[in-house]
Structures are given as C-alpha cells and as structure tokens.
C-alpha cells in the first residue's frame, strides 16, 4: 500500500501524526495549568485574605482594650488620656474597615461577621460611659464599670473572631488538598500522552524508512554490478514510486549498453562492415561509435591507395587530437617529401660523379708538380737550418756580454752607495770645521779684550809720562835728564797704543776671515748635499740600467733557447718534407683508385634513378 505513495507524501503523513499528538499533549497540559492557576487565585482571594484581615481586626481590638486600660489607669494625666483616646478611635476605624473586607470575602456564614460587628457596636457605649466617668474624675467608679462590662464585651468579641479564623483555616486546607489532587492528575495524563506520542513516532519512522530503503538497496546492488562492467544483470520493478521508476530506467540502460558492447566487440575484431544507428539525437555513445566506424573506414581506404604507390592523396584528421589521422597524414606527407628528396639527391649524385671523374684526372697531373716543389723546399730548409745555427751562436755571445754588464752595473751601484756614505762623512767634518772656526773667532774676541786692557795701560803710561815731564820741568836745570826719560816713556806709550790699534785691526781681519770660512764651510756642506743627491740619482740610474740590462739578458736567453728550438723544428720540417715526398707518390696511386670508384658510383646512381621513378608523387 505504501509503495504506491510518493516518498514526499509518506514523510508528510508520518510527521503530521507526530505533530498532532504533540499539540494534543500541550493543550491538555496548558488546560491543567490554567485550572491550577485559578485555584491559587481563589486561595489568595478568600481564605488567605480573610485570615489576614481577621487577624488584623483581632490585634486592633486587643489594642483598643489595652488603651482603655490606660485611660482608666492614667486618668489624672490629661495629656496621656487624650492620646489614648485618639489611639482608640484610630484602632476602631481599622477594625470596622477590616471587618468590611472579611464580610465581602468570607465563604462561610456571613451572619458570623455581622455578629462581631454587632458586639463592636454594643462595646462602644460602654467605653463612652467609662470615659465620661473619667472626665468627671470619678475614677474608682470608672474602674469598676470598665472591669464589669468591658472585659465581658471583649472576651465575647474575641471568641467570635476566633470562630471565624478557625473556619478560614479549614477552608485553606481544603483548597490545598484540591490543588494537590489536580496537580497529580495533570502529571499522570501528560506522562501517558508523551509516552504514546513517542511510541507512535518510532513506529511511523520505521515504517517509512523500510518502504524507501528496501527497493533502493536492490537498485544500489544493480548499479554496483554495472559499475564493475557486468551487463548480465536483469533489473525490473512493478512499483509506482520514484524508486520503481529508477529501476525500470536502469533496465533500459542495461539493454542499450549490451547492444553497444556487441558492436564494439565486432570493431575490435576488425569487422568494419556494419552500421551503427544512434538511439536518439543526444546519444553521445552511439554517435561516437558511428563516427569511429566511418573514420576507420576512410583510413582503411587511404592505406589501400598508399600501398598501391599513390602518394598524391591527402588524409584529413577527424580532429586536432586524432592521433591515428594525424599520424597517417604525417606519414603520407613524409613519404612524399622523402621521395622528392631522394630524386633530388640522385640528380645531384649523377652530376657529382661526373665532376669527381674530371677532378681525379686533374689531381694526377698536380701530384707530379707537387713532387718537384717539395724537392725545392727541401733545399731551402737546409739553408735556413744553417742560418739558425749562426743566430744561435751570436745570441749566446750577446747573452754572455749582457751578463757581464749586469755584474758591472752591480759594482757601480755599490760604489755609488759607498760614495754617498763618504759624502755624509764629509758633511759631518764640515760641520766640525765650522764649529772650530767659530771657537777661534770667540777666542780672538778674548784677545781683543786683552788689547783693550793694554791700550788702557798705554794711556795711563802716557799720562804718567806727562806728569813726569811736568815734574822734570819744575826741577829746572836738574830735571833736564829726567825730562828726556819722560819723553822716552811717552813715546813708548804712544807706540804701544799704535800697536794695540794694529792688533785690533788684525783681529777684525781674523773675524772677517772666520766669517768667510764659516760661510765657505756652509757652502761646502751644501755642495756635499748636492753631491749626495746627485750620487743617489746616479745610483738610481745605474740601478735602472742594471735592470734593463738584466731584462735584455733574459730576452737574449730566450732568443738562445728559441733558436735552438727553431733548429730542432727545422730538422723536423726536413723529415716532414721527406714524408710529404713519399705521400705525393702514394697520392698518384690513390687518384687512380678514386677514378675506378667514381665509375662504380655512376652505375649505382643509374639504378637508384630507376627505383625512385616507381613512386607517383604529383
């Protein structure tokens, strides 16, 4: 029954049943919750409120009673009395208000409340009387009045109030019990419904799954067999749902594949004599088979013609990726080109064979000429050999000469170095001489000082001589002789003075001479310096000369070795020319053989031309 419904309808039906059950369960739970809520509200409105109000009223009544006691006790204190009276009034108001609330909410007999109210109304004149007695200062009477009436009234009210309270408590308990009952019932119903819904969901799920997976499993099995390439499976189904349709389509596909397989087998065996008709316009496999058969037939026809020697055909490939077609096309093209090239080569070959024959005859004549040239060359080589020997000798002499020059240059350099050393010695001695001359000059200065002393002495002697002459003149005739002596002393003083001036001038000369000598030594020193510089320059020149001589010496050494090598080379050339002479003899013989070979080549060419002409190219 299920297999005739579509999978979608099946799934919708199953889920629908489950959702229905869920809604039912939810509705029941909500209804019970609402009932519980109502119960709680009622509980709050009636037993709870009534109890509270009753208690409040009872408390105020007790307070009123206590205040009345205060009135009686503290009657002498007016202020206290008035405060107590005000308190009683306020409490009374609260009691009436609470009683009104209780009367409205009370679920029991409302007459009980009216009774309490009545008692309260009766208590009021009793209190008024007591207060009046207090105001009239009849306190003992007030106390008696209060004790007799008020206590009785209050006790009565108290018992009435307690009665009401009891009723309220009983009512509250009944409310609680009802609520609990309701809760238990709701829990049981909800649990049963949930279990039922779960069971139903499981059963539905199993039924739907089984109806889908059973036929699908057989389809999967068949598809696996097909995937392995086994076309022998039989697939069919009577079911009207999607799986049934799938199985029937697979059966058709298997039949079509079997037909294609047969055709491919025949092609594989090489049988091209068949016609493949595609099942529909979009039958890729069928049209491909059709194309393949056509292409293979075309290629077979082309191969037949090539075999017959016709290379003029062109094979067009079915597509750029057509390997066989491309290869066929390339093959015919290459064969054509190859044939053409071979033809050209054969033509060239025939021309070349003729040329080779003429060349060979020329070769023979030139071989004879070569032989005479070789003998001339041999004579020339001998002459060069002798010249080389001479060169070798001369260059050896040059080398020895340059070697000696190098040694001489080294000696020259040593001499220059020692000359520089000597010059430096001279320089030092020049300095020494200059110093000595200056010392001499200083000593002549000392002489000058001594001369000054001598001049001073001469002056004093002169003065003494004058004084002596004066004394002599004073002595008159007896002093004449003494005057002569004094004159003589004066003359001596004058002479010594002149001598000192001469010495002074000589000293001046000496000093000038020493200055000149110092200058001369300085010039000498400078000259020596120049000499040192020039000799070091000379030394440098000699060094350069030596190095250049050494270079040329090395060069001549190289020349010597290379001329020796040259001589050896010349010998080798002579031997080589000998070999060439022999070879030229052999050349003549060889050219004869070449002539025979060229003739053979010509005949071979003729045969090749015949072979090539069998292929038709254009």
């Amino acid at each position, binding site marked *: 029954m299920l297999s005739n419904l579509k999978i979608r309808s099946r799934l919708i039906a199953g889920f629908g049943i489950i959702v229905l059950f869920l809604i039912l369960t939810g509705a029941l739970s909500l209804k019970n919750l609402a009932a519980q809520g109502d119960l709680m509200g009622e509980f709050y409105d009636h037993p709870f409120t009534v109890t509270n109000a009753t208690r409040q009223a009872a408390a105020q009544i007790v307070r009123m009673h206590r205040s009345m006691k205060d009135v009686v006790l503290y009657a002498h204190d007016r202020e206290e009395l008035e405060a107590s009276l005000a308190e009683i009034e306020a409490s009374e108001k609260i009691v009436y208000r609470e009683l009104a609330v209780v009367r409205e909410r009370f679920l029991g007999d409302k007459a009980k409340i009216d009774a309490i109210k009545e008692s309260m109304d009766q208590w009021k004149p009793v209190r008024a009387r007591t207060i009046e007695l207090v105001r009239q200062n009849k306190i003992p009477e007030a106390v008696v009045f209060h004790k007799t009436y008020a206590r009785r009234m209050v006790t009565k009210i108290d018992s009435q109030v307690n009665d009401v309270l009891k009723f309220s408590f009983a009512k509250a308990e009944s409310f609680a019990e009802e609520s609990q009952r309701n809760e238990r019932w709701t829990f049981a119903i909800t649990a049963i419904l949930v279990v039922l819904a779960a069971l139903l969901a499981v059963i539905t799920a199993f039924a739907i799954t089984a109806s889908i997976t059973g036929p699908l499993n057989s389809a999967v099995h068949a598809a696996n067999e097909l995937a392995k390439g086994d076309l022998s499976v039989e697939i069919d189904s009577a079911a009207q749902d999607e799986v049934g349709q799938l199985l029937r389509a697979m059966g058709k596909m298997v039949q079509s594949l079997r037909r294609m397989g047969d055709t491919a087998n025949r092609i594989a065996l090489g049988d091209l004599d068949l016609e493949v008709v595609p099942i529909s316009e979009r039958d890729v496999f069928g049209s491909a088979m059709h194309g393949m058969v056509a292409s293979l037939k075309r290629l077979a026809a082309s191969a037949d013609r090539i075999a017959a020697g016709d290379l003029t055909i062109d094979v067009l490939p079915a597509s750029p990726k057509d390997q066989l077609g491309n290869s066929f096309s390339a093959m015919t093209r290459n064969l054509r080109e190859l044939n053409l090239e071979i033809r050209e080569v054969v033509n060239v070959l025939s021309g070349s064979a003729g040329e080779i024959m003429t060349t060979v005859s020329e070769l023979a004549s030139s071989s004879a000429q070569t032989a005479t040239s070789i003998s001339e060359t041999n004579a020339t080589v001998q002459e060069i050999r002798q010249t080389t020997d001479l060169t070798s000798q001369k260059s050896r002499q040059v080398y020895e000469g340059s070697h000696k020059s190098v040694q001489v240059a080294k000696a*020259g350099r040593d*001499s*220059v170095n*020692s*000359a520089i050393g*000597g010059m430096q010695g*001279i320089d030092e001695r020049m300095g020494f001489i200059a110093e000595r001359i200056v010392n001499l000059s200083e000593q002549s200065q000392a002489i000058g000082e001594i001369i000054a002393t001598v001049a001073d002495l001469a*002056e*004093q002697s*002169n*003065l003494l001589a*004058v*004084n002596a*002459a*004066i*004394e002599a*003149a*004073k002595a008159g005739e007896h002093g*004449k002789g003494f*005057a*002569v002596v004094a*004159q*003589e002393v*004066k*003359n001596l003083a004058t002479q010594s003075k002149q001598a000192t001036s001469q010495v002074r001038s000589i000293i001046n000369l000496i000093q000038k001479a020493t200055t000149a000598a110092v200058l001369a030594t300085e010039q000498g020193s400078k000259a020596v310096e120049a000499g040192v510089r020039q000799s070091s320059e000379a030394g440098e020149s000699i060094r350069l000369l030596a190095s250049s001589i050494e270079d040329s010496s090395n060069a001549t050494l190289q020349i010597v070795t290379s001329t020796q090598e040259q001589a050896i080379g010349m010998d080798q050339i002579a031997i080589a020319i000998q070999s060439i002479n022999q070879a030229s003899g052999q050349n003549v013989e060889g050219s004869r053989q070449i002539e025979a070979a060229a003739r053979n080549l010509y005949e071979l060419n003729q045969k090749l031309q015949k072979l090539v002409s069998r292929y038709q190219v254009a």
Partner: protein
Amino acid sequence: MAARQHPDSTVKTEIDWSALLIRQETAFAAASERSLAPDEEQVVLRARAAQLAARPALEQEAGATIDCLQFLLSGESYAVELSYIDETMPLSDFTPLFCTPPFVLGIINLRGKIISIIDLRRFFELPVIGLSDLNRVIVVGNGTMEFGVLADSIVGMRSIPAKELMPPPDAFTGIREEFLAGVTAERVALLDMGKILADPRVMVHEEVA
C-alpha cells in the same frame, strides 16, 4: 775608474793642507819670538839715542822760552805754563756739586785732597761736548788757590819761544780775551793761568738760604 778613488776623495786638497800647516807654523813661531832680531833692535836703539842727543842743541838756540803743557778743548788747542801745573790725571769718578755756578763741574778726591774741577768751556762760553773716560784733568795751583781744569785730551809738553807769542786775534772776545797771554803761529792759545787763579770770579761764594 774615478769611482774607485771615492772613499778618499779629499786627497785632491792634500798638498794645500801641508802648505797651510807650514804657513801656520811659521806664523806661530813669529808670534812667540816677539822680540826684534838683534840687528833691528840695535838700529832702533841707535835711532832713539840720536834723537835724544839732538834735542838739547835745539833748545839752546831758542833763547827765552816758556815751558808749557798743550791740551785740546772743544777742538781748539790751549797751553798752560808748567810752573802752575801740579799734575795731570784722568777724569775718573767725580761728585757733582749743587748750588755752584755752571762752570764748576764737581769735586774729586786727589789723594785725600778735595779739589774742584772747572770746565773752561762753560767759563769761556764755548760749545759743550759730552764727557768721556778719555777726558783729562790738569791740576793747577799757585800756592793759595788750587783747582782742576777739564781737558778733552792732553797733547804734550811744549816750549814756546817768548818772541813767537802774538796778541790774541779779534776772534777771541769777552772773557776769553781777558785770560789769554798770547797765541802762537800754530794757533795754540796760551792761557794766563796766574790771572785765572787770581780772578775773583773763580771763587765760589754762594750761600743758599
């Protein structure tokens, strides 16, 4: 080839060196034996003796002469009669005196005797040249008065014939003319020292309040 002789290249001047050494030795020898050769010495001494011997004869013929000392002062030659002269001496250190006339140069200590020095240039109003160590002092006196006369230099002794003396020319004027005894042909002015010594102007009598 020349390079071979390089180490002793100073050889070139060797000959000169020996000649120089000889010259130097001869020079040293000459210096050490300063005394004249015996012959030369003899010649000098004879010449001197002859000179000395000739002098008395010359004086003999002169007749009356004045012995005097000739000296230079401001480029002019003066002479003083020997009879007034005590001695001559170099002008060494002297002490200038304040509160004296300008012609009194100062005082000197002559062997314990204090004498004043008179600068005749200032006295005669001649141009004054600076003093030096070469200046001389001629000490003059006449028994009562004694002072030193400053001289640029002393020429020497001289005997002037009395008849050769001539009166001073017109160029000598003022106080100079007053103290001149005469002038010789060689323009030597003979000072009348007796008059100078006696002149009251030479006396210094100044009192400083």
